[in-house]
């Protein structure tokens, strides 16, 4: 059996490196479109101010992008280094979107980014705009392929297990591409990135305006960010991840956990605005409910039911018991592929193989399974409710706060009086961390909510790890923490330095704080 400490450390390392990577990605995804907008205005009007805007915000974009690239390689390595069995077991499906991401998107983005920074004097205006546009396209396509891969982890469609190769094999690539879960995730995640990019420009512009410097530059930037941010935040909320929550069992489980919905209620279910979930008693000790809302959000209908946690667990118990047969038959088939009885039993119970594998957390041989162990495995099938419940609410609250802020910012930028609204500008300045917190919390809801699986219903997390020593994990984790801390300090130092200096850092002679040297 795999040691629990190894599993926990592997998860911690993946979570830490993925959350860290995701500090940089949303800003890249969003800011790149702001650069496209600014440069388009420049090409259409010929006003140098817009070129300066593209170049200055581009400079900050570049500082952020460098760390996005640095920390992105870690993630691609880590499936192999730390999740070897996962890589073997689902690589046939999961590897393809990652490879296509490189071929189709990342090459484009990374080649164009070089021309974006260095090509200003060597390309015509239109050519340079095309470069920026292709860079944006590459960035967003990259997100698409990554989320197709991630969507498959939540809702593993188009694949089947083979006992000969002892892994999942692709049967329908289109199903993987058009996985509704992946599509919903893509829209939600890139929109969240757009909000992050808009907030970044809005906040820093507000800071210049509060100090009454580089006013013209900051005003235009603020206006673009307000409009783009408002549209994006509407998209995040309306086209939220929830539109995908009815498609698969993983999402239903997540939904029940993040809503602390223990019982299946008659449709449409009520929404728990706040609650104190009681894990042991499988109930809420206290709850303020809004009737109907949950049913509407979760199913977009008035008559479809949403299963509660107790119902989900009862179904999973049946699948675990059937999964025992599947694993037993698989073991027989691995010894002798021509065992006809084993093959019949395997075909009958194959769909529940993953649920049977859940028991391997507790026993190595299936004749040791007791009802108490089955109970434990059943309880594992739903993630802990309180962290899901509260992190989801934090994400939604931040989303609504940003909706309000961008709404006000847009309103006053249309009226043209935002430069005289110091309270709005200050609010925009202090709201800077909001989208990052929302993105990180959103990642947590999506991935912690998938536990105990790496691939929902197919492969449990505890079987996915590489067989490494616990010492190796402590060592590598310490290395990552050390490297990443230094990198973050350096990045923040540069970011703050150049944000403070402002467009003067371009050395054009048109702004405050002109750069020397």
């Amino acid at each position, binding site marked *: 059996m795999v040691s629990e400490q190894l599993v926990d450390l592997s998860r911690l390392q993946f979570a830490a490196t993925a959350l860290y990577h995701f500090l940089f990605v949303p800003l890249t995804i969003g800011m790149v479109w702001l650069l496209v907008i600014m440069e388009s205005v420049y090409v259409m009007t010929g006003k140098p101010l817009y070129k300066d805007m593209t*170049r200055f915000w581009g400079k900050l974009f*570049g*500082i952020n992008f*460098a*760390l996005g690239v*640095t920390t992105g*390689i*870690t993630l*691609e390595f880590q499936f*192999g280094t730390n999740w*070897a*069995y996962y*890589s*073997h077991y689902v*690589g*046939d*499906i*999961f*590897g*393809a979107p*990652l*490879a*296509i*991401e*490189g*071929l189709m998107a*990342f*090459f484009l983005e*990374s*080649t*164009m*980014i*070089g*021309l974006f*920074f*260095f090509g*200003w004097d060597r*390309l015509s205006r239109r050519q340079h705009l095309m470069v920026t546009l292709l860079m944006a396209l590459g960035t967003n396509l990259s997100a698409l392929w990554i989320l197709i891969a991630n969507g498959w982890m939540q809702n593993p469609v188009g694949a089947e297990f083979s006992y*000969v*190769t*002892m*892994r999942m*094999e*692709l049967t329908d690539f289109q199903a993987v591409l058009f996985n509704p879960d992946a599509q919903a995730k893509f829209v939600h995640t890139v929109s969240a990135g757009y909000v992050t990019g808009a907030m970044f420009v809005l906040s820093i512009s507000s800071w210049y305006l509060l100090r009454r410097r580089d006013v013209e530059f900051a005003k235009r930037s603020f206006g673009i960010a307000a409009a783009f941010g408002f549209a994006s935040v509407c998209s995040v909320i309306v086209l939220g991840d929830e539109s995908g929550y009815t498609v698969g069992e993983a999402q239903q489980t997540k939904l029940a956990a993040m809503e602390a919905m223990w019982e299946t209620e008659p449709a449409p279910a009520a929404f728990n605005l706040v609650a104190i979930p009681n894990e042991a008693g499988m109930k809420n000790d206290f709850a303020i409910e809004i009737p109907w809302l949950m049913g509407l959000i979760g199913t977009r209908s008035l008559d479809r039911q949403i299963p509660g946690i107790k119902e989900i667990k009862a179904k999973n118990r049946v699948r675990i018991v059937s999964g025992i047969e599947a694993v037993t038959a698989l*073991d027989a088939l*691995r*010894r002798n592929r021509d065992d006809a009885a084993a093959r019949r039993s395997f075909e009958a119970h194959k769909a529940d193989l993953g649920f049977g594998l859940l028991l391997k957390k507790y026993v190595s041989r299936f004749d040791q399974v007791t009802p108490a162990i089955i109970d434990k495995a059943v309880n594992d099938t739903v993630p802990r409710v309180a962290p899901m419940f509260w992190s989801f609410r934090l994400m939604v609250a931040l989303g609504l706060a940003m909706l309000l802020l961008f709404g006000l910012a847009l309103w006053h930028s249309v009226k043209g009086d935002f430069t005289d609204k110091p309270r709005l500008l200050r609010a925009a300045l202090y709201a800077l961390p909001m989208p990052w917190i929302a993105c990180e919390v959103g990642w947590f809801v999506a991935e912690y909510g998938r536990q105990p699986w790496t691939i929902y219903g197919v492969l449990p997390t505890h079987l996915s790890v*590489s*067989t490494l020593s616990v010492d*190796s994990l402590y*060592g*590598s984790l310490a*290395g990552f923490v050390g*490297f990443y801390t230094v*990198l973050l300090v*350096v990045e923040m130092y*540069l970011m703050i330095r150049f944000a403070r200096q402002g467009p003067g*850092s371009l*050395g054009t002679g048109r702004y405050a704080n002109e750069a020397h*040297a």
Partner: protein
Amino acid sequence: MLDYESLKLIWWLLVGVLLVGFAVMDGHDMGVGTLLPFVARDDIERRVVINTVGPHWDGNQVWFITGGGALFAAWPLVYATAFSGFYWAMLAVLWALFFRPVGFDYRSKISHPTWRKTWDWGLFIGGAVPPLIFGVAFGNLFQGVPFSFDDHLVSTYSGSFRDLLNPFALLAGVVSTALITFHGAIYLAHRTQGEIQWRALRAAGFFGGLLVLSFAAAGVWLWMGIPGYVIQSTVEAAALPDPLAKTVVREAGAWFANYRRYPLTLGLPVLGFAGVVAAQVLARSGRTLAAFWASALAIAGVIGTAGAALFPFVMPSSVDPRASLTVWDSVSSQLTLNIMLWATLIFMPLIVLYTSWAYRVMGGKVSAAYIRENSHSAY
């Protein structure tokens, strides 16, 4: 859809092409990074050297990332077993690569000399360590890697990082470091002039010599002292991949069996040696672009030499030889290989097209005057 056997063979070739592509493209900017502290004396010179690859290193690095992705998609069991088995070696590559994006992008944003020198050495590490470790890894492939599988194909690696650093593997590390640094030096000679170009040519002389010697020495050592692996059971190339279904033995001289059976493959080591010599001659006569392509051919020759010797093995197991990973039994399903083939056939030409365009736009010699004029925007 192509038949499974052909797809397996094509993917062996494609992984090779991606590896060569990585070494040619990312290799030249890694080589430039390795040479940075030695061919450039003051800050302006160093900025000249860095800016020869400034607009391109990022796109080039995607060869590495795509190579990793392709390995994952086409040879998942190799990706899983190699990356987890070579855990600390992989982390060393990864951590060395950390220095590149930040080194390139952050170095010239602050003018403090200590800041800049620190990142210069960061770029050196990011350029020198990955080729060294890849070479060491290849050296270990020839000797077999201590991994085994259980019934459910869970792999266990029973070696340590120290075991990887054996003499033959270190020699292979010298070969690959010399190869990549040589390539970087030739590229640098193409993109610079005057003093820096002259130093780059001298570096090319040194590393070219080292490459020829170490490559030849590795061949002799392999011939004399390292037994190869042979599949003893009948090879069922079109079968569903199951690495435990075959029997494998070690045999002296087996790494040369393919050369005996297909004498044409001897062209690969010849290409390796000839490419180096041709690149030297061409660079010295001022035809530096042609020299770059000659050096790229040398890379294809050296990597091809290793691949042809190992075929059909990818990663032999020293503790349980039947578990050795081969091109026949560590691959993805026929459907995935087919889809990935199409994706590669569609996108690879596009990538080559826009990458060449980027090099053309940013082409020409990088000079000190260019750096002074673009002090705020250049690296």
